[in-house]
């Protein structure tokens, strides 16, 4: 099981945000992106998740069981700045939808909805519409999405934003647990997540203008 990123560069508007980023993550490994606001952490994560067309380079996923043609993004869970939940639907409806729609990846099993809500410490309020929850509760429920369907790679963009201190440690435990089960974690964060052995990549932002093209 290996996520390989080779010579990735990406652009925003006409600016190159980063250039020639390469790394490899195997089962149980994690990489933390740090850097100032606007240094391109989210951009890199989106490029790895296949949501942003990179300017050059590629992202590949290899694993024993996987068919050769699998896009890397299919092996990934992505938790972005936005929660990807519908304010009009109840938390349970939201989680059930993602559970069914995303489905488990070969080689693992997701939790039940109740179990996942429990794991993030909010088992009592799955009947409320998602829009009624507080900012931190929404973030926690968005994280619960990662638990209901199994994916080897978690791509997390500031997972602990808006969380209280106890929830932060719950999240760290969940992430460690995922790593312990041969998961891979790629996270951008401003607050230390408290992972041991995590590699770190410091983003610096702006890597040039694409002027040579013209």
């Amino acid at each position, binding site marked *: 099981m290996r996520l390989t990123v080779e010579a990735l560069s990406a652009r*925003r508007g006409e600016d190159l945000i980063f250039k020639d980023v390469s790394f490899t993550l195997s089962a149980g490994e994690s990489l933390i992106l740090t850097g100032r606001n606007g240094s391109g952490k989210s951009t890199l994560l*989106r490029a790895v*998740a*296949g*949501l*942003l*067309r990179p300017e050059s380079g590629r992202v590949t996923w290899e694993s024993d069981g996987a068919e050769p043609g*699998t*896009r890397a*993004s*299919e092996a*990934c869970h*992505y938790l*972005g*700045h*936005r*929660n*990807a*939940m*519908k*304010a*009009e*639907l109840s938390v349970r*409806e939201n989680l*059930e*939808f*993602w559970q*069914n*729609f*995303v*489905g488990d990846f070969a080689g693992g099993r997701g939790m039940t909805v109740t179990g996942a809500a429990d794991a993030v410490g909010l088992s009592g309020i799955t009947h409320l519409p998602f829009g009624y929850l507080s900012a931190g509760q929404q973030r926690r429920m968005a994280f619960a999405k990662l638990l209901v369907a199994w994916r080897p790679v978690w791509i997390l963009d500031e997972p602990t934003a808006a969380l209280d201190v106890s929830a932060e440690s719950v999240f760290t435990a969940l992430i460690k647990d995922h790593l312990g089960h041969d998961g891979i974690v790629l996270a951008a964060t401003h607050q230390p997540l408290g992972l041991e052995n995590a590699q770190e990549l410091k983003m610096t932002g702006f890597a040039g203008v694409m002027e040579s093209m013209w």
Partner: protein
Amino acid sequence: MIALLLRDLKLSVRAGGGALIGVLFFTTVVAVIPFGVGPDLNLLSRIGPAIVWIGALLSALLGLDRMFQTDREDGSLDLILMQEHPLALTVLVKCLAHWLGNGLPLVIASPLLGLFMNMDEVAIGATMLTLLVGTPALTFIGAVGAAVAVALPRGGLLVSILVLPLAIPVLIFGVSASYAAVQDPAPFMPPFLILVAITMFFAVLGPLGAALALRNAGD
């Protein structure tokens, strides 16, 4: 996939009120025409199918441009794009949900409006049938527009204009099939079959085009 269908249906009933607003608008449009034409029942029944079709077209367009926009705003679209389901299939399912929520109610309401327009049974039946077959094409065409709108930072209506022209053939054949059913010399089948063909054509082209646009819109 079924999960997506159900979710979108739920949302259209809960939030935007797809079904009812479309039908209400449709009714309003049809209710106003007699004012223009005056109480000439003959004339009314003559332009009836056309008016019902136009009303349906306009109602189908309401809200279609935001088909992917809400998913993008809350981040759901990102996750949808990442899955292994072929994207065109996902779009197809979303179209289906949209049609069930917005198109089908129009089809069901159309006989009532036919009565308002003083149309006879055959005309009403024919109009309903053509609407049933034709409105999905409108949804598929709209999906392309909606997908392109997602890419626009300042998206929106611009797109409906880009795709509305494509809806014109649907309208033409829908209306002419409805007329053919009541007017003697003209045969019903040829325009109706063309309508079926158009719908099937767009059922393929629409989702493919929309999927292509969504993949390329990424930011």
